């Protein structure tokens, strides 16, 4: 009896100095509960995640319930929340985390928590083949000691799709929370195959500066979330936001602020840079980049042989003369080609037969040596921030522009002249009025460089613009799309040409050609577009921008429509 009284007194005195109310408002605690700063409730919709019946709306009650479970030695609960107790052990002296871990058999044997060397966050570049992937993707990688990196574990957040769905339900549910979201883990090679080898997307790996406590806290939190579900919202409660929520547990900076309406996956990486939480960035090029780069590194003689072998279906493997470099290149090239071909396609079957002959011969030749060629690319945070606000002037008016997501050809990015903009709103300010002038709903341009080995029609470029703009004081909504070709004529210069189709709500339909030039001198970029619609004079627009850094730029725009107009302006990216 005396012992019980003494214990209660000791425990009380040990944590009476800890203000539990204040602790329940701690950023790390709220992040462990996935507390939404705007709705003031947890984003976790699984009731069994919370110990207290009101835990999803009351972080203080949840904290009390967590501590009570420890005091009552409720190991069923204790072993389910190792991250909470690990974190609490630094705040409340009597909570002995070592004792917990030794008592929780399944947790102790959990593979993912063992031999952790470091933790990385990976950004995957945008992909136009899947609407949900257009803004990129991000996931967490747990790097293990003394292990082949393909076997490292990755943690991703995504939505659980039903087996069948329509495009309309996909968009509506994705935007309005109709899908459940959850975290899953798999081997890194699954991500490598999907992103690099099938989607041909680049990846940037940001290795985090974390101490052992922080690494364990993050990994144990994944244990806590293994059965939890969320509502998936494509715009702001997506993979990027959920990755940032993890980092928010250990960071001093707030990684999930300014996320009420929109959170792009790339936002996490700008915040990582600002918080100085990264010690190394590793670029993982896509299979497409690797294949193209390796071709141009080959000697002219070898390029000629490869080109002949690939383009002439009847050419024999004898022309490869047992040169392992040539065999290796062609085999990799065939893998690249065949990844996105229909298996029932006649061309696929022919390629498959050719590949088998190459395999048979290649396997008899000596092993190739490990390649020491490392492709380099700028960090993804070199790019201008995704949203922008701009103010520009011409002789008569002032224009205000806003876009929540904009990758322009003239901003800093790694797109080499491509454009990807969603919602660009322009307001005209003149004398006493502020009026809507133009809305570009979507503006995409993809300039695909020619590649020696591909046929002409396999490397087409394309563009799409859907817009509403003022034309003679009336609003006109139109679609303007084109297909064409682009050439890299110098290192920093591209020439492109399109055949375009213009259709508007006034039932005007026009087919017209355009010619363009794109100059990229790192901070200074220029884009020129010349076009002629039928029964109209030749028109052009010139956009030139000097990017001071990834947040500010000065630009000049010259347009010739009926008259020549010049605009000068400032842009702020954020």
């Amino acid at each position, binding site marked *: 009896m005396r012992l019980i009284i003494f214990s209660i007194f000791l425990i009380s005195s040990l944590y009476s100095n800890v203000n539990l109310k204040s602790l329940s408002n701690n950023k790390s605690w709220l992040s462990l509960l996935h507390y939404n700063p705007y709705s003031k409730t947890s984003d976790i919709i699984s009731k069994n995640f919370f110990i207290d019946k009101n835990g999803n709306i009351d972080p203080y009650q949840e904290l009390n319930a967590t501590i009570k479970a420890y005091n009552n030695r409720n190991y069923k609960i204790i072993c389910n929340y190792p991250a909470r107790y690990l974190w609490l052990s630094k705040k409340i002296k009597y909570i002995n985390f070592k004792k917990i871990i030794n008592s929780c058999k399944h947790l102790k044997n*959990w*593979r*993912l928590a063992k031999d952790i060397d470091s933790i990385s966050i990976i950004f995957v570049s945008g*992909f136009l083949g*899947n609407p*949900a*992937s257009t803004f990129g*993707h991000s*996931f967490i990688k747990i790097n293990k000691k003394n292990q*082949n*990196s*393909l*076997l490292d*574990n990755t943690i*991703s957040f*995504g*939505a*659980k*799709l*039903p*087996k069948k769905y329509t495009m309309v339900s996909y968009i509506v549910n*994705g935007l309005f929370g109709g*899908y459940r979201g959850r975290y*899953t*883990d*798999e*081997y890194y*090679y*699954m*991500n490598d*195959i*999907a*992103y690099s080898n*099938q*989607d041909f997307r680049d990846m940037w790996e940001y290795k985090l500066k974390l101490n052992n406590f922080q690494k364990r806290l993050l990994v144990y939190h994944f244990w806590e979330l*293994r059965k939890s579900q969320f509502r*998936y919202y*494509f715009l702001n409660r*997506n*993979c990027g936001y959920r990755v940032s929520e993890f980092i928010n547990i250990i960071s001093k900076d707030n990684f999930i602020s300014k996320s009420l309406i929109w959170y792009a996956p790339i936002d996490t990486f700008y915040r990582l840079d600002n918080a100085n939480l990264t010690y190394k960035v590793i670029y993982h090029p896509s299979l497409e980049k690797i294949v193209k780069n390796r071709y141009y590194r080959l000697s002219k003689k070898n390029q000629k042989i490869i080109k002949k072998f690939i383009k002439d279906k009847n050419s024999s493997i004898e022309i490869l003369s047992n040169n*392992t470099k040539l*065999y290796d290149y062609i*085999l*990799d090239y065939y*893998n690249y080609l*065949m*990844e*996105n071909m229909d*298996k029932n396609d006649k061309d696929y079957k022919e390629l498959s*037969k050719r590949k*088998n002959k190459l*395999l*048979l011969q*290649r*396997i008899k030749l*000596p*092993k*190739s*040596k*490990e390649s020491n060629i490392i492709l380099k690319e700028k960090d993804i945070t070199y790019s201008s921030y995704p949203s922008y606000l701009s103010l520009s002037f011409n002789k008569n008016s002032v224009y205000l522009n806003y876009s929540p997501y904009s990758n322009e050809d003239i901003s800093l990015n790694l797109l080499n002249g491509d454009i990807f903009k969603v919602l660009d709103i322009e307001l005209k300010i003149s004398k006493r009025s502020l009026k809507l002038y133009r809305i570009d709903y979507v503006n995409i341009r993809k300039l695909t460089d020619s590649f020696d080995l591909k046929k002409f029609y396999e490397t087409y470029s394309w563009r799409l613009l859907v817009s509403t703009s003022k034309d003679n004081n009336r609003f006109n909504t139109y679609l303007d799309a084109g297909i064409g070709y682009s050439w890299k004529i110098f290192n920093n210069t591209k020439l492109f040409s399109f055949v375009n189709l213009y259709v508007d709500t006034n039932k005007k339909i026009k087919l017209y050609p355009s010619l363009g030039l794109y100059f990229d001198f790192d901070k200074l970029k220029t884009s020129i577009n010349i076009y002629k619609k039928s029964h109209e004079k030749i028109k052009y627009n010139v956009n030139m921008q000097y990017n001071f850094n990834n947040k500010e730029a000065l630009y000049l725009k010259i347009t010739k429509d009926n008259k020549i107009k010049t605009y000068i302006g400032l842009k702020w990216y954020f």
Partner: protein
Amino acid sequence: MKKIILASAACLLLASQAQARDLGNILKECGIGAAIFNDNRTAAAISNLIWDLGTTATSSDMSSPEECKGSSAKVAILIGSSYNKLETEIAQGNGKYLKTLATLSNKSTTEIRNKFAKVIASKDFDKLSKEEKAQKLYDIASK
């Protein structure tokens, strides 16, 4: 003495048959299924929106059934997911996927290469489906 030898031989035969599991069945048990061989994009079940493959096999042994936790299951999943890469890297004699397979199967890259060379050299290699080729590679790696 003869009875003991025969009994032992029978046990060994049964044991080896028990280990030589069908690749397709393992993938099915782990929630991936044979669709991985037919659809180029099945392995791209990740992106921003996850395709519903039923119980998704996990690497950390969290939610996968017992059959997915052993090393042979891990070999099966690697081969099922990346057969094209493995086939090429085995022929080339080098590559990160080949090295990963060697690690998981506890064999050298040379041993895998030499044995797979016989598979490629077989008369019916051209006629085999991707699933059948993967099964042969699995048989080499898991024995």
